[in-house]
């Protein structure tokens, strides 16, 4: 996984609550295995409104086309567990999301893709949205994960909280599967023990389909 250390870049404000993953990466881009996820990010929200030629959506405004930090509403990423939503965020160039809350699976997906998903209290979120909106993409914000700080263009800093384990995993770009593979012996031990204590947990068989043997159909 690509490490996350310090990110300096344009911050954009998208305060709508409950933005679900169907909005983050809509189905037409999900459906096409060769789709450009960067184009699909907020694909429908980015379209011009009916009767207009230009889109009002924040990421379509010239200063925000280089957005690296997205400041969101609450419960961001609810709905489908599609990890493609995080891939789309990353493909666009956004590496940090800041919200008062994220949907559970969505945040897990972010962590495993090196996307920093910062949770802040609602009051701090309001302040941050205002600062991002007034900056209007003109000057960059800095997210320093090592020091757990968001630094505004004027030098003012906002502290954020993240568990040391999550921070280290992102800073070092740790391989999540590799962390678990260190526990292989315990996994094998569990399998051995449960074969005796609750045998049906491990005793699972499903017949392969044999097209020539239609009589086996239920």
């Amino acid at each position, binding site marked *: 996984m690509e490490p996350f250390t310090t990110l300096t870049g344009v911050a954009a404000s998208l305060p709508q*609550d*409950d933005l*679900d993953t*169907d*909005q983050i990466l*809509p*189905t037409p881009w*999900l*459906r096409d*295995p060769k789709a450009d996820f960067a184009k699909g990010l907020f694909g*429908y929200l980015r379209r011009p409104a009916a009767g207009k030629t230009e889109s009002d959506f924040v990421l379509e405004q010239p200063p925000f086309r280089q957005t690296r930090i997205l400041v969101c*509403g609450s*419960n961001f990423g*609810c*709905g*489908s*567990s*599609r*990890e*493609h939503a*995080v891939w789309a965020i990353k493909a666009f160039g956004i590496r940090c999301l800041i919200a008062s*809350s994220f*949907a*559970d*699976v*969505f945040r*897990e*997906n972010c962590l*495993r*893709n090196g996307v920093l998903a910062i949770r802040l209290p609602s009051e701090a979120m309001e302040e941050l949205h205002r600062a991002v909106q007034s900056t209007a993409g003109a000057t960059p914000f800095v997210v320093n994960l090592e020091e757990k700080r968001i630094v505004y263009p004027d030098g003012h800093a906002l502290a954020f909280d993240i*568990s040391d*384990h999550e921070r280290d995993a992102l800073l070092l770009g740790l391989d*999540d*599967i590799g*962390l*678990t*593979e*260190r*526990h*292989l012996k*315990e*996994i094998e031990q*569990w*399998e051995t023990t*449960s074969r005796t204590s*609750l*045998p*049906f*947990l*491990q*005793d*699972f*068989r*499903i*017949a*392969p*389909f044999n*097209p020539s043997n239609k009589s086996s*159909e*239920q």
Partner: protein
Amino acid sequence: MGSSLIDKIWAVHRVGQRGDGRDLIYIDRHVLHDLHAGHAFAGLQRNGRGVRRPDLTVSVPDHTIATRRAPGATGRSGSSFADSMRSGSAHFGITMLDIDDPRQGIVHVVSPELGIAIPGVTLGCPDSHASTVGAIGTLAFACGTSELEHVLATQVIAIHKPKLMLLRLDGMLKAGVTAKDVALHVIGQVGVAAGRGFAIEFAGSAVRAMDVDGRLALSNLTSEFGGRTSIIAPDDTTFQWCQGRECAPKGAAWDAAVSWWRTLTSDDDAAFDQRITIDCSELAPQMTWGTDPSQVAAINGHVPDPGTFEGKARNAADRALAYMDLQPGRPLEGLPIDRVFIGSCANSRISDLRAVAKFVDGRRVSPNVTAVVVPGSAAIKRMAEAEGIAKVLQDAGFQWHDSGCSMCAGVNGDIAKPGERCVSTTNRNFENRQGAGVRTHLASPLTAAAAALAGRIVDHRKAAE
């Protein structure tokens, strides 16, 4: 202090704890669908890893495959996603219930139907509706693609133990009120984020009285209030339903399993981080009016005035009414519709189809409505055809498709036209979910069937008379 049902299953499956404080929970059954499988297989190969327990893993295509056969075709057509699932499954030695397998279907319908999901086991599935099988006492984990790859490689999930919520649903449901109505009402009461960070146990007399199909529909909508997993304590209703299914334990193993399953209830003094009780005895059939599943009202109710909401909820309601093209204060009943979709992991089971056929029997779908029924599995489709249900529906003017996710996710291209109003038995009414500009109203199969016949939204309890 006693243990909750989730505590008990958690404790049995806890392999250990990782250095970062995450519990390693063994996954007994792992079911994959086509939207994620190919990506995860590619990830494994890229990193030189294998599938640790292909014997505990089953793959089934449902999201991307066609549910309509091309004219003159003898078989079903797949997709590039199904193709990568097929090659990966063959490479790693995973049994795949392919599009021509008589056991194919929507993963959350097939898992309990085949006894892949049974009480007390843990199940991983790369889908937010994994919690569906919680209805039979399976502890299921919804996950993304990376976590799917993790489970394939290690057979455990690395997860912080969630907080526990006891959601009691009490009261006897009135005639014509279904588990789907209960689920929608619950989401309307608690909101779309109430379950975030929680594992939820559904309990209460209304849940106990539901049949297994009803419980599956209820558990299915857990994700719609933010829960990653939910469970219902297994009981005799569950055991009878599970017995004899292809992958369920047999003989002495079955008896041993049932004795353990009978211990899988929450102790009276079990600790929960939150308890919510909702009375369902006065409930009417429910329908969503907005663009998230908490924006719901009784079928004989009205579209609310956004002015009655505060702050951001008001903005959300304003936005929803604009998208849904609805006027505040108008009754839901009488609203003309263009399309009806009966299907999905929420409501596509045989009891849903039986109820719809009984309601429809001898009547016709409105000429203004395109109505589609997509059974949840190939087995349910055959059963419905054998029982004459398919004929009743087709005679009435419903399209009768092969099983798959179809218009729920819209990933296979089964979508409605821009601006169409669709009554749908699915679980998500998000903007553009069923096609660009499509206006989705979530409801039970009976409500959807009544709308199909009338060409407008009606209270099926009146329409049946």
